[in-house]
């Protein structure tokens, strides 16, 4: 799980092109969307694609997205639970 969280931090900073944000700036339990990082609904969609592509996990509706993307930890937990290739 910690490894997955670290991996996600790097990927998020990379695909979202967040200026002045380093992977370690993302707090596991802080609001992922709408917080200081500046991540918004369009970024969520971009993350949805990345998660489906890299982990084979689909997050294909808004209600589910709101739960899964609450924090980095909830996101990692969801991927961990659903990803076919990740050890539980």
């Amino acid at each position, binding site marked *: 799980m910690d490894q997955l969280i670290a991996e996600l931090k790097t990927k998020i900073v990379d695909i979202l092109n967040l200026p002045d944000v380093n992977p370690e700036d993302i707090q596991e339990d802080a609001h992922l969307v709408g917080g200081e990082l500046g991540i918004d609904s*369009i970024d969520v969609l971009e993350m*949805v*694609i990345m998660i489906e592509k890299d982990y084979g996990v689909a997050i294909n509706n808004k209600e589910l997205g709101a739960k899964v993307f609450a924090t980095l930890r909830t996101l990692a937990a969801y991927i961990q639970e659903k990803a076919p290739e990740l050890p539980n």
Partner: protein
Amino acid sequence: MTGGAVYIVGMGIVSSLGLGLDETMDALINARRALTTASPFPIALPRYLPVGAVSLADAGQSPPRTHRLARLAADQALAGCDIPPDAIVLGTTTGGILTTESLFEQQIDDPKRYGLHALGSVAEDLARRSGCTGPVITVSTACSSGAVAIKLAMGMLRCGLARRVLAGGADSLCRLTYFGFNALQLIDPDGARPLDRDRRGMSVAEGSAMLLLSLAPGDAACPQIIGAGLSCDAYHATTPHPEGAGAMAAMRAALDDAGISVSDIDYINLHGTGTIDNDLSEARAVKTLFGPGLPPASSIKGATGHPLAAAGAIEAVVGALSIDRGLIPANVGHRTIDPALGIAPVTSPLRRSVSTVLSNSFGFGGNNAAMIVSRTARPLETSPSASDRPGLTIVGRACLTGAGLTDETRRAFFAGHACRGVLAGGALAQGLAPRLIRRLKRLPQMALSLAVHACDGVDAERMPVMVSFGTAWGALSETHDFLERLIETDQQYPSPTDFIGSVHNAPAGQIAMLLGAKGANVTTSGGDYSFEQALLAADLLTRQTADPIFVAAADEHHPVFSPLFDASVRLAAQPADGGGGLLLQRRQAKGASCIALAHYGSGEPADGVKTLVQALGGAAGMDRRFGAVMVGLPAARRKQAQRQLDSFLELSRFQGAVIDYRRLTGEFGGASAVASVLATEMLGRGSVPGPLVGGTDQALNGKGVLVLGLGDFITAIRIVPS
């Protein structure tokens, strides 16, 4: 001069419901849901998403599908009409993209095959077929394009610029919109269910509708368009304002324009796409505006799907049919009332007399339009004559070329040095916050840079309320990257961000958000004349208001797409891009410069140049008003343009400086916007710099500069001291 209503003297329609008025009416009476899994391109998704497709007998690639749909609608609208329309205004977001996608997928790099990629090529095709030699304007404001086109056509008629205008919208299904909207999770896998509690999104569709609009009534009792209003949310790239503030502003503006009140509306044809956010914000806006007296309302997009740029025009025709044949169409696909919306739409078609219809069209970037169709004739109003109306005063300006921003460009250009090139990203984004541009590629960055620099130091009350932006090719980087990734990932992982950025009106939407400009927001696309089109739109939108408007045009150089699409780029000595922007306000201001579009017509007719010279007041008018001419001779049309220039100089007997600006700026669609900014700078210094005329400075002696566009079209922008 007349104001007020314009008559619909001809109509044409093609959609998933069928071809022509009768088939459309038949489908509406029967509340037929025309969503299928038919698609004009192969789909590798595990599950097909329902679309609203048109059955086209001929499925070839030329002309592209959008062109064919537009032809079908235009032919109906012009049937039995011997005289060509004076002008054409068409809304489209797709142009030839479906064909481009196929060619790109097959890695075909023959530029001839991409010849009808441009959005503007659809309207130009209609102009050729109908013999129209006047202005041919293309509007691209996403899903409100068709309605905005009709608004501009009304403006042309009302101000006497044209007597009959063919206006409407056309879009074909294509990979970009199908996979793009899906990546945004805005598609309902079960087909659109507008306003339904369980709705999950829209269904992408295709179609076209064209209306022949005239100041004079046709033979039969024909419905009229009595008002239209535009606004911009300036809120978010894709999500509407949650309370529907922009939607309400557009509806209010349409009612004001028509001079009627909410109680006069018999039927509201909702935009109602079926997305969770659109329907919620539209419902809130409608309820707030109408209060308890809400008339019957429905969205037809559960029947047709959402034909994007064609939607506004298709629904204008449906509004006219409602009035003409006494029908309120059903909100097909709706089962359960959504308590969050608090609106019970019409669920079965109602046969009853309808006099006045309000039709909404909202688009990405918060581009909102509302239109009112009515059977009730309105008395003619007297508008202030043209001579009483102040011109568009230049309040701020900025340009961008390979040399850099305004100061660097002016320095190079005025020294007679080339400023062509492709400015590096860092220099381009100078002054823009990194967070602001983190998702933006080249064209939107250019647009923001122009807006920020043109408005630098401008008083708060002169900051732009409206935006009119021209671009020949739109956001090529985003379009390319979206398609590339779509192909590379076998349609599985297209980028939502690139899709949002790929729409032609994205840069203007970004400007609106940055500046909080909540008035009309228009994007035009007409090749090398896109700035002229944006200026024409700005002129029409400011007839009744002193609200400041930012008018700009820009085009980016893309290493793959620019040479494929733009023949002038292929002939250029080196890649170049850039643009220019002017902050304008309609007011009297001593000492300031004024700008106006003096002429826009086809370059084909033998008497095209003669018409231009006449529009400029003949040789005497030219001599009295202009000290210099900046002329745009696009490389791909250099011979034709040179002949036109020779003819112009002969007929106008013009003796002043003539500057062939593309030799210095390079070849790109928005070059005339750069030329207009530089012309304004010349007016400011009162002379044409010597190096540009191979000698010493030539005083303008209080005269202005004419920015001439030649080639496929002949255009003239007048920049003169006020």
